């Protein structure tokens, strides 16, 4: 586990050390390390001269700012009504079948995490999911498996 102190110091050089610098810093730390552990939050708190409780309190509000261990590839499947009507459960089942994880879980090799997410804005082409920043819509169980296989190979 690499020491995040230098990385976070560079982020603070880039975004500043004010309170309004917090969100972009949190976002880049999650991009780099997949989640915010105590050490990273402490380093952020030091750079911005705010309390670690404040860093945690802010981060924990946002569903994309993981404060518990998370995989490299975060699979987020939409569960809001239209995607639900369009059989999102079949997509979830397909992921579980292939990766062996249920929503809320991470694979043993820490490569994938699976979560539900609320409306992604692809209702007319549901069901839809995000894998990190990439969006995939018009999903079928077969398509999802093909998409995941391409990530497994990475």
């Amino acid at each position, binding site marked *: 586990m690499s020491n995040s102190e230098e990385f976070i110091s560079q982020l603070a050089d880039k975004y500043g050390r004010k309170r309004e610098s917090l969100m972009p810093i949190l976002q880049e730390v999650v991009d780099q390390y997949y989640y915010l552990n105590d050490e990273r939050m402490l380093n952020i708190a030091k750079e911005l001269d705010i309390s670690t409780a404040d860093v945690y309190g802010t981060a924990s509000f946002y569903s994309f700012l993981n404060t518990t261990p998370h995989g490299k590839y975060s699979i987020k499947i939409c569960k809001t*009504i239209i995607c639900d009507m369009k059989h999102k459960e079949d997509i979830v089942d397909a992921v579980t079948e292939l990766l062996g994880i249920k929503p809320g879980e991470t694979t043993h090799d820490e490569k994938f995490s699976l979560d539900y997410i609320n409306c992604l804005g692809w209702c007319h082409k549901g069901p839809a999911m995000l894998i990190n920043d990439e969006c995939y819509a018009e999903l079928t169980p077969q398509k999802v498996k093909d998409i995941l296989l391409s990530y497994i190979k990475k």
Partner: protein
Amino acid sequence: MDCNSLMRNVMKMGKDEFVQVLLDSGLKGRGGAGFPTGLKWKIVKETKSDIKYVICNADEGEPGTFKDREILDKSCDKVVWGMALAAYIVGAKEGYVYLRAEYKFLTTKLRIAIDNMDNHLRSLGINFKLNIAFGSGAYICGEETALLQSMEGYRGEPTNKPPYPVNFGYLGKPTVVNNVETFVNAMIIADIGSVEYKKLGTKASQGSKLFSVSGDCCKEGVFELEMGMTLQAFVDEFGDGDTKAVQVGGASGFCVPRKEFSKTIIGYEGIPTGGSMKVFNSSRSMYNILENYLTFFEEESCGQCTPCRVGTQQLLKGVRAVKRKEKPKSYLDELLKLADTMKYASKCGLGKSVGNAFKSIIENFREEIVY
């Protein structure tokens, strides 16, 4: 649309003159709240401050809404130019697009549009720096004060209004916060003028609007429709022939049953909407739909005020208990009272709107909830 030329024309016309054009056009915010855009820009313009901001609310998160995503994907330049136009009018030198995390894949297009515009702005002598701020997965950050809180590095918890962002916005400075579609409409009005713009729509709802249509439809997608149409006309065009209900305005909107279609107007004089239209046919369980909405709100409530934090939990628990026969049917009337209380006592629009879908589904489809 040649945005550069339009900007030149507005500069020739004059700031006060263009504000008047916006006011005359009757343009109202396209995010759903419907505040007159001309008035918003006028207030910020007239507020004395060295520092002002223009912010684009691209935190589209209302279930069933995806028109802003389409706009950003296909007409990014109109959005950023609309922001530059606002900045020129009100006197702002800095702006942000607050882009939801779920739309991060649009970043490259956005950056290219901003870079292209920058070159032109320099030649025009306009000093406006546009940045992107990202959300991190919180529906409530679509509420403008929560959005500002998020940008300032805090939990996305709405703040009291007044003060309004136009007077006390980002970092306490006068700020224009407008929806993606609103900025595009400002450019359209700069192009065709207010008279031409008003030819579409009605007295209360001028112009056209983009609608996000999904569900049990013969066609789904983003459609530009005239404001003020009846829901019947909408269902005739988009329904699959077996439409039981239409949810107008997302989870925070109203569920309109078949018998009300011809009486319901889609617009500020009827049901105002950010454009989300979800169509349900007779195969759908209204209980499932209601449970889905309540689960959504319970999760997305910021939690700071008791009426919403506890109210959303209790409404969800309550309908489940009635469905499972753990509570009598009459308990629904207690829950309706709770929804009313939430409407008056909640701090922001989220808590206030939960009752809309709740009441409209219970009142029109009670038998589906109790049996």
